[in-house]
């Protein structure tokens, strides 16, 4: 935990309302993006983020600084995300919207340009990521989108670095199987 964060936490505990915003601000957008990909729904991510911030606020007094504040905050949020998905509640997800609208054609244009190819690859990856089991998706999202190392992921998910390594590998192999055609394609053409 940085000195600045320590100071902000002291200020919050002393009653400063501004300090809380300053403490969370550096992580808010990143955390939201991570949640949106884990939950597959920005709407759900909005809910979970709000709950996570309330919890972080309420529990700040219990934060002992044993892990970084970033890890602590993400742990709260990811745990809530898992709980959220387990709850039986309606969720507007990109996947469901897509299924309602029907699958988009992979390509309608004759002249395939680089942009449309990239968009296509992104969509296929997004879909494949959504098909992963939650435990694999979470580690992949934290690794690839958040750039967390194995130890940090382990601290957030409260699993060992060895388990993180195994899950990341298995998740990647599943993605590889799903995306075999595009991965074998020369990326330079995309």
């Amino acid at each position: 935990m940085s000195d600045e964060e320590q100071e902000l936490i002291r200020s919050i505990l002393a009653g400063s309302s501004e300090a809380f915003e300053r403490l969370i601000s550096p992580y808010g957008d990143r955390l939201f993006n991570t949640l949106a990909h884990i939950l597959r729904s920005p709407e759900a991510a909005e809910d979970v983020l709000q709950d996570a911030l309330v919890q972080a606020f309420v529990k700040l007094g219990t934060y002992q600084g044993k892990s970084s504040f970033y890890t602590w905050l993400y742990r709260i949020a990811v745990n809530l995300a898992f709980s959220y998905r387990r709850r039986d509640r309606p969720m507007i997800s990109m996947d469901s919207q897509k299924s309602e609208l029907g699958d988009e054609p992979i390509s309608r244009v004759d002249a395939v340009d680089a942009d449309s190819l990239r968009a296509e690859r992104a969509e296929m990856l997004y879909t494949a990521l959504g098909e992963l089991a939650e435990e694999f998706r979470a580690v992949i999202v934290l690794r690839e989108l958040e750039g967390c190392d194995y130890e940090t992921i382990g601290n957030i998910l409260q699993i060992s670095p060895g388990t993180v390594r195994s899950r990341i590998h298995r998740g990647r192999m599943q993605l590889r199987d799903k995306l075999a055609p595009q991965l074998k394609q020369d990326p330079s053409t995309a």
Partner: protein
Amino acid sequence: MSEINEELISAYLDHELTPFEREDVEAALAQSPELRQLRDELETLREDFNLLPVHYHQNLEQVLEHVAVSQSLQPGIANTPPKPLIKKAKFWMSVATTLAACLLAIVTMRPPPAATNAERLAMTDQTESSKNQSLEQQSRFMDKAMPNAAGEEFSGAMGGMGGGLGGIATADSVSNEPSGSGVQADVRLAKEPQSEASEGGFGQAEDGNLASGGSAPGTLAVQSNKKPDYTVTLAVSRNELTKLLEIIVPMPAAKPAGNEAVQAKSPQQRKTVPANAADTPADPQTTVHNPNARQAIAYAVEHTPQELRKVLDRLDMSKYRIANTNEDLPDEIAEKAKKHLAALLADKQNSKLQVLYLITLEPVEADAGKEGK
């Protein structure tokens, strides 16, 4: 191509291998076209993540602002939850319930005469029935003792204490009965950090009335315009509340209750003091406890430094106190808390200290489980 090598390739790309493992992998890559193909595909896969859309929260600043604002509630806000600026009703439910749990009216009383000591202990089971009165009874006492308590700020109310018991307000009474003129209090984070591992407690109810995510004991404290000198966070089973209160305020043997005494015959029959108890008699229809719900009560007591030291010593030997587990706190904060208490006891040798007890009443079911451990 072995499974272990595949996993090592993945970790190799993440720079998560030891130097020895790295050497092994590079040697294997040099020899195996299949491994090189796997490496290339996984590398492409990783690069493709850069193509994924990035989601931005539209109202993040507002969310942060609202969570932060909840730290500095203005007096009276408990009656009218703030208008949500964000469309998420759920968010406000969680914020509002968190705050409701904390807006405990601190009603204080002058020291009761000996004849009314029995009335001081309410909200108990009848194991020690001779000492117990229902909170409804206590409410009447409060009417007599502090007719003007309602509407007064905490500072005024605290100033009226003379070693007697503080009033009790429970979280559910606050949420069920908005207090039109209840004692005003701010909500802030307490300065007594808890263990990260601690769960539940003040500000949390299992029935969902309170903080959605739950707050750790002592993380929220009631503060008023005049802060208590010291805050003690406790957790107790309902059946043991009497014992706890005896520690907080040792009292002489209680006389049998008078004709007006209403003994609680079962947990379901216990009554709570609504936040505006001094104004409005408790309504049994709305204040009956749910014995299976965790509830929080605030209890304001005035002690001399010597009394406080004695009480804290007794609490330290008890299982009730959950805010003093200094071994669970970062050294710096634990040391600070220790110094604060020492300075307090030294500085106010000749005056009374205003002490706020935040007590989590554990649900009956939880009690059984705890006792079994």
